[in-house]
């Protein structure tokens, strides 16, 4: 699933380490999320969206044809 995490994070001037700490995950997880190698759970997706004060749909771009993980 594509997402706009990196774009939004950079726009807000938040470092990966800082963002990871706020989400309670490792920096590698943030990196994997941003490159699309890993899809988050609904809980983490919700947490990320809430951190940016956005909706999940605004951060994560669902495409019908995509396989799950």
């Amino acid at each position, binding site marked *: 699933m594509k997402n706009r995490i990196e774009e939004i994070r950079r726009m807000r001037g938040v470092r990966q380490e800082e963002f*990871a700490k706020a989400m*309670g*995950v*490792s920096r590698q*997880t943030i990196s994997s999320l941003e490159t699309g190698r890993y899809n988050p*759970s609904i809980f983490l997706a919700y947490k990320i969206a809430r951190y940016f004060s956005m909706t999940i749909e605004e951060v994560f771009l669902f495409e019908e044809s995509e396989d799950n993980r």
Partner: protein
Amino acid sequence: MNNNRRLINSSVEIVVGAVLLLAVKLTGGDSIWLGMGGALIVVGAIQLFLGLRYRADAEYRERTDTEATDERNQFIRSRAWVCAGTGFVIVGGVMTVVFQILGRQELSTLCGTGVSLLVLLYWLSYLVLKKKY
């Protein structure tokens, strides 16, 4: 695991390892106990070192806690178990046939039983988890 429990467990491992080494030394027992005692001491010492570091180093503690609860890490661990299980079944299945061809009946049976046991455990786990979720 709770860090205090880890410290206690590692201390017990070291003591048991030392007792095993001492027992072998005094009785001249089997060398397998010597190896087991040595291994217990090494594992216990490493666990003890990590436990003490966890207690003293706040940065290490935070990193360890994050790694333990990190959902991607949990996902990777689950996938690694899946790969290990699949690999075991494939290798075990192949070895069962190979040992059968080579006429090593006991080893073939052992491999076949191992694979069957794993498949049985998989199905039992599946049935339990199916009820849970």
